[in-house]
C-alpha cells in the first residue's frame, strides 16, 4: 500500500501576478506504507509547501495527489494524518494537557481515554510535570515538544512533521528521534519529515528526498539502509556514508561510485563539529 503518492505536482503562488512564486514543479514522490521519508533542502525550496499540499491545506496548481489511496481532501476530512508545524502553534488559552487533548476531543475520544493518551505522550516528550501549565510559561523547545505530543497523540497512520526538532537541544533531539522511530515502527506509521539536519535525515529515514530551489523540485532521492537503529548506528560507517551521499546531493555533485576514505572522514569530522 502507498501512503502518499504525488505525480507531476506543481504549486504556483499568486499565479499571474507580479509576486508570482513557482514554489514547486514536477514533483513525483511515493511514500510506501510504514516508510519514513525525510525532505531536505535549502531554505525556500518548498519543503513546507510540499507538506501542506499533502495535508490538503493548500491545493496543487498541477498534477495529482493521493493520500491513503484517496484524494487529499477526503483524507483530510477523514483525519488520516497528524501534523506538527514549523511553529508550535499551541492554543495559549489551553493548558498543556488540554492542548494535547484537542485532536482527540475532535475525534470524539472519551474524556478518560483522552487524558490517559495525552499524559502518556507528554511523558514521552519529557513534560509530565507541566501538564497544568499554560504555553506562555514554557520555553520555545518545550512548546515544540508539546506540539509533537499533540501530533502523536492520535496515533495517526500518516505523520507530517515540519522541522519538529529544530528548537531542541542535542540530547533531547536524539532521544526524541529514537522515540519517534519506536512509535512509527510500533504503529506502522508512515512519516514525511522535514529537516535541515543531514545526520538527522540519514538516521531517521528509509529515504532522503533532496530538494533544490527556484523552482522548488526534487533533485535526488537517496535510499538509506541501516537496519534497526541503535546508539551504534550513529557511529557506523554506513551512517557516515549516507551523510556524505546526502551532502553531495545537496551540493549538486553526483556521488562517485566508490566513496573515498578521505570523503567519509571529512564527513565524520563535520558531523561531530556540528
Amino acid at each position, binding site marked *: 500500500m502507498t501512503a502518499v503518492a504525488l505525480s507531476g505536482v506543481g504549486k504556483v503562488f499568486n499565479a499571474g501576478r507580479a509576486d508570482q512564486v513557482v514554489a514547486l514543479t514536477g514533483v513525483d514522490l511515493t511514500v510506501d506504507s510504514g516508510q519514513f521519508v525525510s525532505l531536505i533542502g535549502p531554505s525556500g525550496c518548498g519543503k513546507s509547501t510540499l507538506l501542506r499540499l499533502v495535508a490538503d491545506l493548500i491545493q496543487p496548481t498541477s498534477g495529482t495527489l493521493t493520500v491513503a489511496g484517496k484524494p487529499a481532501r477526503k483524507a483530510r476530512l477523514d483525519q488520516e494524518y497528524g501534523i506538527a508545524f514549523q511553529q508550535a*502553534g499551541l*492554543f495559549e488559552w489551553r493548558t498543556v494537557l488540554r492542548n494535547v487533548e484537542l*485532536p482527540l476531543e475532535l475525534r470524539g475520544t472519551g474524556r478518560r481515554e483522552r487524558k490517559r493518551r495525552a499524559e502518556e505522550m507528554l511523558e514521552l516528550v519529557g513534560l509530565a510535570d507541566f501538564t497544568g501549565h499554560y504555553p506562555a510559561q514554557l520555553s520555545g523547545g518545550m512548546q515544540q515538544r508539546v506540539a509533537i505530543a499533540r501530533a502523536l497523540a492520535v496515533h495517526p497512520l500518516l505523520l507530517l512533521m515540519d522541522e519538529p526538532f529544530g528548537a531542541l537541544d542535542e540530547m533531547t533531539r536524539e532521544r526524541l528521534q529514537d522515540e519517534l522511530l519506536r512509535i512509527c515502527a510500533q504503529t506502522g506509521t508512515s512519516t514525511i519529515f522535514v529537516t535541515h539536519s543531514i545526520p538527522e535525515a540519514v538516521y531517521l529515514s528509509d529515504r532522503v528526498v533532496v530538494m533544490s530551489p527556484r523552482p522548488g523540485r526534487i533533485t535526488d532521492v537517496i535510499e538509506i539502509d541501516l537496519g534497526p537503529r541503535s546508539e551504534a548506528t550513529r557511529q557506523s560507517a554506513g551512517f557516515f556514508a549516507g551523510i556524505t551521499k546526502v551532502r553531495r546531493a545537496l551540493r549538486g555533485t553526483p556521488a562517485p561510485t566508490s566513496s573515498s576514505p578521505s570523503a567519509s572522514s571529512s564527513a565524520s569530522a563535520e558531523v561531530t563539529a556540528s
Partner: protein
Amino acid sequence: MTAAVDKIAAADPTAPVVVGRQRRSRGFLRGLLPPLIVGIGGLALWELIVKAGRIAPFILPAPSAIWEQFWLSRSVIWQTGLATGANAFVGLIAGAVVGILGAMAASRFRLLGEVSIPVAAALNALPIIALAPILNNMFDSTSSIPRRVVVSIVVFFPVFINTLRGLREVNPTHRELMDSYAAGGWTFTRLVRLPGALPFVFTGLRQASSLAVIAAVVAEYFGGLQDGLGSRITSAASNTAYPRAWAFVVGACVLGLVFYAVSLGLERLATPWRRSR
C-alpha cells in the same frame, strides 16, 4: 489615578486598544501604592491651598468640606448611586451584548464587516449625550429607558471595535491546524475565535465600564427621570451648594471605579492564561 488614565484612553477610539499587560500583571499592592500616595498628597495640597485662601471656596471647596457633605448626604448618595448604577449596568450589558454579537456577525460576513466599521465610527463621533433630550421626549417622564439607551449606545463602540479586532486576529497556524482536524464553522469559532478574542472583549468592556457610568450620570442633566446622581449634581449646583455638588461627583467617581474594578476582576477570572505569564 489609573482609572482616570483609562477614561481618557477610552474616550479616544484611535488610541491603541490593548493596554499593556505589564501593568495588569504587576503585584496588586505595588500597583495600588503609587496612585494612593499621589492621591493623598494631592488632597492635602488641595486642602492647604483652599484653606490658605488662594481659591475661593465657591469655586473649589476644600476636600474637608466636600467630605462633610458626603457624610451628611450619604444615604441620598447611596440611593441615587444605586439608581445610576442600575442604569449604567443595564445599559452596559445591553450595549456589550449588541457589540459582541455585532462583531461576531461582522467578522463572519465580509461585506458586513467592511460596512459596519465606518458606520460604527460615525455613530461614535455623534455626541451621543446630545441624544438624551430627544430620547427623553420619546418616552414617559417616569421611564428609565432613555438613560439606559444612551449608555448602551456609548458602550457599543469600544466593545464592538475591540471584539471585532480580536475575532479577526486568528493565528495562521491555528487555522491550518484546525483545517487539518477538519474542524470548521461553529467548532472553529467556539474553540479558536472566541477564546482568542476574549482578551480583546475585556479590553473593550474595561473601557466601556467607565464610559457607562459617565453616560448614566450626564444623561440626567438633560431631563427625564431625576432619581440618579446626575440630577443631584445639577440641583445642588443650581442652589450654589457647591460642596454638596462635589460630594455627588465623588459618589459618581466611586461608582465608576467600582465598575472598572469589577470588569478588571472578571477579566482576570475569565483569562487565567494571561495572569500566569
